[in-house]
């Protein structure tokens, strides 16, 4: 499979703290990857650097062979990078349908579709994720799990090539979590999207979802490989139990 | 949240009270068959609300009294007045001056037009010193209150907004304050000026200096950067150069400046013979105070508008001593029917009568015992000039009255009144020069109106 994204030696410091200390990894076309690691290991910072919200202090990010390190978020989105937020950020006073339609309008098809098609795409996706019942409800009035689903729907509507999910199933009942994982898999198969999901502790998702797992600790990638292998590695377990390296 | 609903309730309650007040008053107007003529001084009027308006036919030219022996009719004179906002001070004085003049005319038999006697009534609304309020007020006065003759609002900006509306309905407007010369060069047919134009404010002061101290040479002009004061300053500069003075300093300060030290500092070294300038009340007082504070010695300091106010001395104390100011009118003037100049005809109250009537109106409006400022005199003179012109034209048609004004030359408590037929500019009335001499305002120029010798050079 062709390589979709390559992160090379990315460093990011906030004042004294080094959030990312020379991270390198690559994602193949259509691959399902999970990035795991305890809180504060730099997972969300890595997302923000790939998505362009944060500029790295060093290192390079290459997407489909093109160096996008300096590009602002809206240019990266146009190339096909979409993300969800750990804490959902819907537009509260706009309806669920409008929220998703805005995703479609400003996603990778930016400038090529009008408001009408965007609203139609929104209806389609709300059908898939099972939120069409609440289409006309103001996003602010949804429950937290529903908001997380809305985040996912909005990201999918952006027709991305790379979908980055930040703790998308955290706080959900097992039944809902499984349903979301199935939806993501179906989306991946249907649109050949590669999906990267950040997971902190819901190990069920890792085993059921991921084809490859990357483990991060204190801003560095310490292990990479298929889920069964990585999860059994004593080094990874010690990291999770809070032991030092 | 309790707070939010409480506020909503209060907000709606206030609006309901407002509307109830309007309808309650509307109801009151129907039953009361108002007998006798309305008391002009109280400025009470028949109120109409929008809802009622559509059935009522447009007001006839004069309100005919339907009740007993209706031979006395009322002629309504209207005015948009600045009773709030930045011209509030001038607006209040103009209102009281106008009401005093109306009261005098009505007490002296009103005016007679082709055999019929008319009592005057003065109808006004607050334009909030805001040009955008003026158009709707002028229109309301003309179309609903049946007004054909108006006092113009204060300042050029507001007058310019009112003029097209007045001209469209053919109503005559008399400008009694704050309008600069440019307004009268715009070719309005129905706009006439009562007070001396802004560009000639300092003529008498400069004439006085020339007369009492021919050696005086250098003049410094420090003025407030706004449309009225700049016109005065530029006029004064031209006139000073014409008289042979040398204008060594010509600088302005922003409209709401609170500290003039930077612009006054250079005068310490220049040591000009004459310093003139200023703008309105606040900055005029500041100018006088800081000239004194910085120890700037000049033979004469002349400041616009502010010194004409009684509490100028109260606020500044000895810093006000010897300050000279141009004024349209001062209570101490000695114009009287006996001193009427050649070709002029006396009309209106004597100076004492005007002050008496003014004080009555002021007391009635709860302003206490105060003397009229020249803004009050400007408005009163406008009413008198208008009333005489209507009688002269013997017609209530504004065109005839405007025509009659061309060859009207009145001498009043306010001095000479004569307009230039072409532009409507005031060419008869001259400025007088007042000076603060040990705590009292006295007139020092022109000689024929003077109460005391000018205190020159300034202590």
């Amino acid at each position, binding site marked *: 499979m062709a390589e979709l994204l390559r992160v090379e030696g990315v460093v990011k410091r906030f004042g004294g703290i080094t959030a990312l200390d020379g991270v390198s990894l690559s994602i193949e076309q259509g691959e399902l990857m999970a990035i795991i690691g305890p809180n504060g290991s730099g997972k969300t910072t890595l997302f923000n650097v790939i998505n362009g919200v944060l500029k790295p202090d060093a290192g390079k990010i290459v997407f489909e062979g093109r160096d996008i390190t300096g590009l602002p978020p809206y240019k990266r989105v146009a190339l096909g990078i979409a993300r969800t937020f750990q804490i959902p950020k819907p537009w509260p006073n706009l309806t669920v349908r409008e929220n998703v339609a805005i995703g479609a309008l400003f996603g990778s098809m930016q400038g090529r579709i009008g408001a009408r098609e965007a609203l139609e795409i929104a209806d389609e996706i709300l059908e898939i994720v099972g939120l069409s019942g609440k289409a006309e409800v103001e996003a602010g009035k949804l429950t937290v799990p529903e908001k997380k689903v809305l985040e996912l729907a909005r990201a999918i509507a952006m027709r991305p090539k790379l979908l980055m999910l930040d703790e998308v199933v955290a706080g959900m009942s097992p039944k809902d979590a499984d349903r979301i994982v199935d939806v993501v898999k179906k989306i991946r198969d249907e649109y050949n999207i590669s999906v990267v999901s950040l997971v902190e502790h819901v190990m069920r998702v890792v085993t059921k979802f991921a084809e490859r797992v990357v483990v991060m600790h204190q801003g560095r990638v310490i292990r990479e490989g298929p889920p069964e292998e990585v999860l059994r590695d004593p080094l990874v377990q010690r990291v999770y139990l809070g032991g030092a390296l | 949240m309790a707070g939010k609903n409480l506020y909503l309730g209060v907000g709606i309650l206030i609006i309901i009270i407002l509307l109830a007040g309007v309808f309650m008053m509307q109801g009151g107007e129907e039953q009361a068959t108002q007998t006798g003529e309305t008391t002009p001084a109280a400025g009470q009027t028949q109120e109409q609300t929008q809802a009622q308006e559509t059935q009522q036919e447009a007001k006839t030219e004069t309100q005919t009294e339907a009740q007993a022996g209706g031979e006395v009719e009322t002629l309504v004179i209207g005015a948009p007045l600045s009773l709030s906002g930045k011209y509030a001070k001038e607006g209040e004085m103009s209102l009281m001056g106008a009401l005093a003049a109306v009261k005098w005319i009505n007490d002296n038999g009103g005016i007679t037009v082709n055999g019929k006697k008319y009592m005057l009534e003065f109808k006004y609304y607050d334009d909030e010193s805001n040009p955008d309020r003026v158009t709707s007020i002028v229109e309301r006065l003309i179309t609903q209150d049946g007004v054909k003759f108006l006092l113009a609002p204060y300042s050029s900006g507001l007058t310019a907004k009112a003029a097209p509306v007045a001209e469209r309905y053919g109503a005559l407007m008399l400008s009694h304050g704050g309008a600069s010369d440019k307004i009268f060069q715009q070719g309005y047919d129905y706009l006439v000026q009562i007070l001396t134009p802004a560009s000639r404010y300092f003529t008498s002061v400069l004439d006085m200096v020339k007369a009492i101290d021919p050696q005086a040479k250098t003049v410094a002009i420090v003025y407030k950067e706004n449309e009225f004061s700049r016109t005065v300053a530029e006029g004064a500069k031209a006139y000073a150069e014409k008289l042979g003075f040398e204008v060594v300093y010509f600088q302005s300060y*922003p409209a709401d400046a*609170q500290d003039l*030290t*930077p612009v006054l500092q250079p005068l310490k070294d220049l040591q000009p013979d004459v310093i003139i300038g200023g703008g309105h009340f*606040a900055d005029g007082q500041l100018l006088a105070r800081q000239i004194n*504070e910085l120890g700037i010695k000049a033979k004469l300091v002349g400041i616009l508008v502010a010194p004409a106010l009684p509490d100028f001395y109260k*606020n*500044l*104390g000895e810093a006000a001593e010897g300050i000279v100011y141009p004024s349209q009118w001062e209570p101490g003037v000695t114009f009287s029917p006996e001193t009427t100049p050649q070709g002029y005809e006396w009309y209106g109250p004597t100076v004492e009568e005007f002050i008496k009537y003014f004080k009555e109106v002021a007391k009635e409006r709860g302003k206490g015992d105060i003397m009229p400022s020249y803004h009050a005199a400007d408005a009163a003179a406008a009413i008198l000039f208008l009333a005489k012109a209507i009688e002269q034209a013997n017609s209530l048609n504004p065109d005839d009255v405007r025509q009659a004004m061309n060859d009207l030359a009145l001498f009043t408590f306010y001095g000479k009144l004569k307009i230039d037929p072409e532009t409507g500019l005031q060419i008869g009335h001259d400025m007088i020069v007042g000076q603060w001499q040990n705590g009292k305002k006295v007139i020092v120029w022109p000689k024929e109106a003077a109460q005391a010798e000018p205190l020159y050079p300034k202590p």
Partner: protein
Amino acid sequence: MVDVGLVVANLVYGLLIGIIYGIATVGLNMIFGVLKIVNVGHGAFIMVGAYVTLLLFTLAGVTPPLTIVASMAVGIGLGLLFYYLVIKYLVDAPELATLLATFAIGVLLQEIVKAFMGADSRGFTWNLGNIEIAGVSVALSKVIAAILSIALLGFLYLVIYRTKLGLAIRAVVQDKEGAMVVGVDVDRIYAISFALGIMVTVASGSILAMYLQSGIHPYMGEIYTLKGFVIAVMAGLGSIPGAFIAGILFGLFENLSYVALQSIEGIQPLVLTRSIAFLLLLIILLVKPSGLFQR
């Protein structure tokens, strides 16, 4: 050639008026620092302070420096009144609502004062003669006004940096949630900070009245709101010591840019200085939006 005497004079006067600008802006910055609210009615509160001094001096003969105590009390009263009546409901409201609400408060104060005091411009004379500073003769009352400003700043500094209340206020400024978690009654701190901010603002009105002694009228405050914004942003919205220093810089800037413009023909220097002051604001906002003294 720029005449040295003029420059020195402008330096001295720039410093004096700058100190007054400083104390007049401290209250504005404090309210923004704690409550993240820009008080558009700021100038109206300054006007109230000026009237307190005017009335106490002209009617009761109270010497102006003493009237500051009265205006501080009036400030705390007004601060608490408007906090619990209006600001309390708007703490988390969008900018639009708080800007408009404080504007309405300013209009209300101005019109009430005008209804009682009338629209005319008043003044008083408190003449202590002049003294020499660097060869420039300055009214003693102006120097005292500047000294009182520094004293008032000192008092506020003590409250903020030496008392438990001050600690709580600074905690709320750093991180509202953090303070809440530690058990700080944030609403009470908001009320007190707003009252303190208004107290300093009204007191600075008295100091200003002492400095100018004329031009006191209901609408005198508006120019101080505008200048206050420029200085507050220059300092960095929220920083209290910064506001004082920025005020001095602004005072000096205003006077010195006037001297610089003197030599240009056909323009009105003092008026243009006002325009350059706002240009300065834009430049600072572009180069360092967080202001000169903010981290």
